[in-house]
């Protein structure tokens, strides 16, 4: 009986000598739907498995720095110093919107305008009621309810929080000093929901609540009121694919830490999140096949994956940035000298 079990175990372990290539990555949940759809299609065509798990941007960063993953995805870009110390290469892939939603009874599905001043004052606790004159002044056609404003933020670390706090820090020096930027900060007010789901649930159940969500979590059935933000060009903008695309066009590798948050440019959505991929600068021999495979995957994705990206509500990185991305791929060092990433994306 014992021998039978042992034999089964040995067989199981040896079954995998001709299993198809498995490339494992993890990180932000923001781009997860796109990556999983891409990998599924890619697998059907090329029989290479790209396994992507959403464990959070921080998780992705941490695990790739420990090299327990082949690649990572993050919404919070690493600084040049961090890239150097972890020996990683970073490039953007997708853009999406972080959305502010509010639960305003009677005003369901109506958008309300908030400008930078009001927004930062709300989150700093200085404006505490929706009926405040300043808010009403920006929304003359709507009668705002007299409800206390309840702030809902993320309890767990999140790239979404990073995007929002980065924005707040840029529009408010007081926020930058008092609270700062990060995937996890000490919010002066409000309380935390676990994951986007938790935030959505809270906002849905508390009249007068306001919270920030990844775009995919804004469901029509929740009857949230969307918030129009005032971008740098002074326009009040709703988060749409075109406003995100307008922001995406402003992406610049030189200014990577700012991403495209609060970008200049007409029709641009201020809270645009960029989703990056992190890969190691140096590859050991054993992983040669993996990174050639990963490269081919991204070539395929940039070429054929546009529809899926659009379908799922995201914006792909613009063509001119893609060229710079391929340049970065070519800088990867393999253990064997004179080996480079094969293939030409064109």
């Amino acid at each position, binding site marked *: 009986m014992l021998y039978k079990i042992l034999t089964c175990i040995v067989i199981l372990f040896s079954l995998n000598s001709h299993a198809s290539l498995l490339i494992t990555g993890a990180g932000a949940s923001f781009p997860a739907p796109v990556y999983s759809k891409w990998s599924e299609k890619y697998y059907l065509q090329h029989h290479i498995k790209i396994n992507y798990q959403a*464990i*959070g*941007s*921080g*998780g992705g*960063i*941490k*695990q790739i*720095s420990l090299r327990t993953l082949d690649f990572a995805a993050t919404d919070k870009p690493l600084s040049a110093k961090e890239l150097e110390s972890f020996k990683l290469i970073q490039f953007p892939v997708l853009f999406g919107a972080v959305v502010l939603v509010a639960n305003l009874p009677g005003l369901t599905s109506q958008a309300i305008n908030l400008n930078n001043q009001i927004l930062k004052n709300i989150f700093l606790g200085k404006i505490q009621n929706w009926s405040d004159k300043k808010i009403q002044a920006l929304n003359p056609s709507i009668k705002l309810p007299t409800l206390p404003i*309840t702030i809902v933020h993320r*309890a*767990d*670390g*999140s790239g979404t929080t990073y995007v929002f706090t980065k924005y707040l820090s840029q529009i408010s020096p007081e926020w930058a000093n008092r*609270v*700062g*930027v*990060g*995937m*996890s*900060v*000490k*919010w002066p007010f409000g*309380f*935390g*929901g*676990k994951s986007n789901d*938790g935030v959505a*649930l*809270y906002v849905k*159940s*508390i009249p007068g609540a306001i919270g920030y969500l990844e775009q995919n979590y804004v469901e029509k059935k929740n009857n949230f009121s969307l918030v129009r933000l005032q971008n740098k060009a002074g326009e009040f903008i709703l988060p749409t694919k075109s406003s995100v695309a307008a922001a995406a066009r402003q992406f610049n590798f030189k200014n990577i830490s700012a991403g495209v948050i609060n970008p200049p440019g007409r029709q641009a959505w201020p809270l645009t999140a960029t989703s990056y991929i992190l890969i190691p600068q140096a590859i050991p021999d054993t992983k040669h096949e993996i990174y050639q495979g990963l490269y081919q995957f991204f070539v395929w994705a940039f070429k054929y994956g546009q529809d899926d990206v659009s379908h799922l509500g995201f914006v792909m990185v613009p063509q001119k940035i893609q060229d710079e991305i391929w340049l970065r791929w070519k800088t990867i060092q393999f253990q064997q000298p004179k080996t480079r990433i094969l293939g030409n994306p064109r």
Partner: protein
Amino acid sequence: MKKVEIMNGMIKTLSRASVLIVIALFMGIFYFLIKNSQLSIHTFGLQFIHNQEWNPVLKIFGALGAIKGTLITSLIALLIAVPTSFGITMFILKVAPHSIQKALRISIDLLAGIPSIIYGMWGLYVFSPFVGQYIQPWMMHFFGDLPWIGHCFAGENYGMGLFTAGMVLGIMIIPFITSIMHDIFELVPNILVESVLSLGATTWESIWHVIIPYGRIGFAGGVMLGLGRAIGETMAVSFVIGNAHTMTTALFAPANSMTSSIANEFTEATYELYSSALVELGLILFVITAIVVFLSNFLLKLTKNQHGP
């Protein structure tokens, strides 16, 4: 002769090796916990336990908030679970018709097997809205104005927080504690109970005057085991506790427990001091659990030695 010695020796060696492996693993866990929290221990020292500020951005970590969260939720859980479990045990053994006693006992044991993630999901989607809509407002209305404990009932009507987490936890450990109490009830010699009954005592009196004093050490041990279970629970709590590192005694405000902090933040801890602080939380948790387990075993053993063959 030889074969006997070989076989004997083999069994002894394998068994002993297994025991040593288990002990080594345990030591390994302890070692890992201590080693990885060194950075945090050196940076914060004893302040870690006194400080309530947990700020990943400013790199200041103090565990007091999480520790209090764990203790308060566990306390609420026990307050709910212990009397309820006692009531259930009483019901099954004394009130329910004999024919369904076994079925009830079995269903309680089955319910003990429900994994904690289910409690978490149920807590998030079903129970906390219920609490927020019905129970919380009532309690705030009722207790909110009382002098000392009134401020405990401050907070908003969101259904999340220490109170809800404590309740979900309590419901989760009810089958567990009921099982233990059931065993202790049955440990009491029937003769004692019957003799009191034959003297005219009511059922309740037989419980109050015979079973409880007889089994009180066992009950205490069972309660401690339940406490240990409640302290270590991760999934059921992190869904509904609100996850905020604040130092508040308001029951309805969001808070944090040691386990939910670790679960929520470990993968996000991108710099060493952060993960070291979380591991130190784990170390504190480990030590507390060990103490509670030790105490409960001690008490339960006393019961068995006191009265059993």
